[in-house]
């Protein structure tokens, strides 16, 4: 019974996706409103050949990915310890929380001009903005996760005579791991958003730049290819995190 319902779901999903593509194609051919300027699926597929063969396209992939990884890694390296420290030390929490809450609502992209002024290279300024975007997410998620640890677990550890160091490495860290991973997955999503926009605004390479340049250059089917590429790249990155996350937290596997 269960197997039947999953295949049914898949079939319906496939049907709707194909239906939408058909609608898009027909709409474009018949010049429906809203679709008259948008390239049709067939045009997009036709242009794939050219694009995939061009090495510059793959360089753009590498460029975006390297920015994403640098900014993201930096955000984790700084953000996770900050979050954990804030969770464990009341003083630090009260000290750092207000400034963080003031800076957090400022959209990361709003930092682009300031970042460009400050950093010597465009690359660094993009990475900085990416870092900011992911940093706040990470700190908040880690902080929330660490603070939500069941007090009883810590009490149990203490009644065994654990030192603070043990409590941190053996209780707090593993218990916060799921939140850290969630923060990473969400942060990765934010990271791609920021990368794309930053590249459109101020970049000279990368998938975001590719998409924007295609528009400016009048090569509309390429825009769709660019968008799809970014979507796939983002999906792969988040997926990788989720897979690694599941490996790191085997106790969370549910039947």
């Amino acid at each position, binding site marked *: 019974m269960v197997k039947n*319902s999953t295949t*049914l*779901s898949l079939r*319906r*999903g*496939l*049907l709707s996706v194909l239906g*939408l593509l058909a609608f898009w194609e027909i709409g474009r051919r018949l010049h429906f*409103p*809203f679709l008259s*300027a*948008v390239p049709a699926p067939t045009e997009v597929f036709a242009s794939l050949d050219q694009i995939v063969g061009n090495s510059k396209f793959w360089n753009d992939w590498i460029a975006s990915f390297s920015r994403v990884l640098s900014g993201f890694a930096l955000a984790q390296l700084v953000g996770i310890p900050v979050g954990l420290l804030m969770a464990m030390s*009341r003083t630090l929490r*009260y*000290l*750092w*929380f*207000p*400034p963080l*809450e*003031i*800076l957090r*609502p*400022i*959209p990361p*992209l*709003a*930092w*682009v*001009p*300031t970042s*460009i*002024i*400050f*950093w*010597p290279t465009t690359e660094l300024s993009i990475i900085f903005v990416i870092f900011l975007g992911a940093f706040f997410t990470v700190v908040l998620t880690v902080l929330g996760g660490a603070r939500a640890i069941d007090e009883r677990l810590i009490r149990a550890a203490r009644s065994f005579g654990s030192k603070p160091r043990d409590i941190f490495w053996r209780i707090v860290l593993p218990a916060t791991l799921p939140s850290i991973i969630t923060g990473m997955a969400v942060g990765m999503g934010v990271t*791609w*958003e920021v*990368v*794309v*926009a930053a590249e*459109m*605004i101020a970049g000279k390479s990368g998938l*975001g730049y590719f*998409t*924007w340049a*295609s*528009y400016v250059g009048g090569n*509309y089917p390429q*825009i*769709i290819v*660019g*968008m*799809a590429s*970014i*979507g*796939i790249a*983002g*999906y792969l990155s*988040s997926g990788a995190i989720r897979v690694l996350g599941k490996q790191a937290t085997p106790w969370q596997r549910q039947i």
Partner: protein
Amino acid sequence: MTVIETPSQSRTTQAADINSLALTLFRVRQWFTQSSPYLGFLGVASLLLAWYLLTEFFNVPRFNKLPGPVAVWREFTSPSPTFGISIYTPEYYMHIIWSIWRVLQAFFWATVLGVPLGLFMGWKRAFRDYTFPVLEIVRPIPVLAWVPVAILIFAGIASREAPVIFLAFLATFFATVLNTMLGVESIDEVYFRAARCLGSKPRHIFFRVVLPGALPFIFTGLQIGVGVGWFSLVAAEMISGEYGLGFLIWDSYVLSQFPVIIIAMLTLGVVGYGFSAIIRLIGASLMRWADRSGV
């Protein structure tokens, strides 16, 4: 013969009076000696101080290119500012209102379209089977990657406003639909069963179980939605807008009016925060019944 004395009445009332006074004094003393408000001030103050020292006082290289707090404050509070933006200039408020108005429109459409969609997706398996895959394919595409397509879609049909609002709408829409759907899925099966036992027809189940049950998640979704919508709007304004805080940031950068950048950034922060707070308050008042300890 000993008589066991019970404490006299007068003594207990005396003790009560002393207790209430002592209690008040204790509370006042606590507030002053508790570190939290001080630490908070200290945190913000040290941030401002660091900003000031690095940019204006010590003139640290690279930092000295950035506008410092003094320059920003002077500009912000001047009746005739050098770059035309201060609390006294109407342009400042105009930009704010443009941005807010756009976000409100995006938010409105995202809610009106997203909440019902999410509710149905959570409630009816078949509906979800048809709609979820399409959503999941489109969702990973960063909203801002849509900028060119958004411009193309609305080219010649709507004003230049449409693409910008559309982008903010997209971001909010996805957050709203997803959270609403999760909200419905989070409703304990037991409530559906109880409702069916009591003779409910499908429309009753929708309006009396699905909708109220998902409400906490819907509001979380709206809060998140406003946040990401705001974020996308600013980016869209920077890329292709006229007026608005995002536009102001980019424009003042291009024109080298650096203090205005900071003014706009901080304004963004404050307004964004205000939006979330308002939604949180509305949500809290509509859901007095929600268990405070958790949903």
